[in-house]
């Protein structure tokens, strides 16, 4: 049953802490994250991927966030990954015309090339998941939005409304858990009044969503109105000339992090180029 909706929206929830990762400047986190992810997307090969995976695991241990919690978020994705792998094995035969055939499925041909390509993709997505989780688990959303805004600040001179964009992102992300809680309340209220949300065919179930969606939207509008009033009451005007409540400052720790990440990225590139498997 979908009773505890909010329980499943824990991916990307900030877990406050005092680890090395938590103490990094959010700009450092964003930049190094971008560097690692682009390496992951460009470089290909088991050695560099395992290297990046190992690095992500080290970071996970450094973050002192319970490993079980982070991996639990990956569990629902395991099926998708498995299906992805199977598809890649079955449908990629034409990319490897000179590979021997493992087995045939109709006109499709499975090859070792497909098995490897699939395995690499699964590995790549797992590392991507780990890195993304680490970023959002150790940095608050407001922090990240502020950091992004600062890093992109040259664009503001070109007239891009960066502050507003950052604000919209922050609010949108901030509302996800709130709406999940709201939905949970509505689901409970429906079930308590005799609704059988988990029974019936697809159409029946879809129809039963209407009494949930309409009040959910009404409450979103109510909340949006409250938010507007609260911002007006505090004379929020956004934009230029507005100082930050928390000023970021790079520490020696950030330099160290940058050096370590650069070294890992360089190693991944080199091994990717030199070890062709």
């Amino acid at each position, binding site marked *: 049953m979908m009773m*505890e909706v909010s*329980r499943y929206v*824990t991916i990307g929830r900030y877990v406050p802490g005092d680890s090395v990762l938590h103490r990094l400047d959010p700009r450092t986190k964003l930049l190094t994250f971008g560097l690692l992810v682009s390496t992951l997307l460009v470089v290909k090969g088991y050695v560099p991927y395992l290297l990046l995976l190992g690095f992500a695991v080290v970071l996970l241990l450094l973050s002192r966030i*319970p490993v079980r919690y982070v991996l639990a978020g990956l569990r629902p994705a395991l099926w998708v990954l498995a299906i992805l792998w199977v598809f890649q094995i079955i449908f990629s035969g034409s990319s490897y015309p000179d590979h021997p055939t493992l087995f045939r499925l109709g006109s499709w041909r499975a090859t070792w090339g497909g098995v490897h390509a699939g395995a690499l993709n699964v590995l790549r997505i797992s590392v991507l998941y780990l890195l993304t989780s680490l970023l959002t688990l150790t940095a608050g959303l407001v922090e990240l939005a502020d950091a992004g805004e600062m890093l992109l600040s040259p664009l503001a001179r070109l007239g891009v409304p960066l502050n507003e964009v950052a604000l919209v992102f922050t609010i949108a992300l901030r509302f996800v858990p709130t709406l999940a809680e709201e939905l949970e309340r509505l689901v*409970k*209220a429906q079930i308590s009044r*005799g609704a059988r949300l988990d029974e019936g065919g697809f159409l029946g179930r879809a129809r039963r969503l209407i009494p949930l969606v309409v009040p959910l939207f009404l409450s979103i509008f109510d909340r949006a109105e409250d938010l507007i009033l609260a911002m007006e009451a505090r004379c929020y005007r956004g934009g230029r000339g507005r100082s930050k409540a928390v000023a970021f400052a790079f520490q020696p720790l950030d330099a160290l992090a940058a050096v370590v990440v650069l070294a890992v990225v360089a190693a991944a590139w080199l091994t990717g180029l030199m070890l062709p498997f």
Partner: protein
Amino acid sequence: MSRALIEVKGLFHTYHPNTPFAREALRGVDLKLESGQVLGLVGPSPSGKSTLLQYLNGLYVPQPDQGKVWVLGQDTAAPDTSLWEIRRRVALLFQQPEQQLFEPTVLRDVALGLRNFGVALEDELEKRVREALERAGLDPERVLRRYSRTLSGGERRRVALACILALEPEVLLLDDPLSGLDPRGRWRLLGVLKSLAERGISMVIASTRLDYLIPLVDSLAVMADGRILAFGSLHEVLNREDVLRAAGLQLPEIWRVQQELRSRGLPLGEPAADPAEAARRIARALGVA
């Protein structure tokens, strides 16, 4: 084997288990409700009151290692127990239920549960809705076809109560029913709840305030931090000031006045919950009546 109407034994509940956000809401709760009884559940917020009520409504079901809940003699965790049936017979009024009216008009909203549970035929729906609205202290003629959103907060809450009364439940679970209402709304709803209690409907009423509960309940459970600190008759529990203080609760003023008078030597018995009754006793003790 005859069990109480509701019985809870060693109930534990943790929100978001196995995550850094884990929060223990119930830590070994024991509770009993006999037929015809009105039980007050008082404690600060959060102390686990809402979670407990949701167990009694079959919205939560304990895992084998989380304790036991029997409602109407049935173990809610047993595979052959119909939670759907329990939800009709032991109905729950949520906190701020006026935010959970689903249908546009009052008639359709009160009829929603009747339809879901199939307790009324289509052609007697309106009659049942009218009866429920009357019992909830509303004038059916005036509100039946109104849009819920156009009613006052207190009226909307009584519409939500009517939604549940229409199901003719045997037990009412009320989660902080009087909070956030204006004085008139509170007074009207209190009258409705009193008349329901007089008709012998069993109730569990959760509240953060003792003074809201005292006119309604005959037994009291004090909750704090997911535990029941005291459980007994109204007078038994109110005499345990140490427990009330531990739960951060204050004795209602009417109670304190009578205790003060008694400690100054006025020959009063146990304090009375009803102001008129208290006044009578004081007058008698003073020899003016």
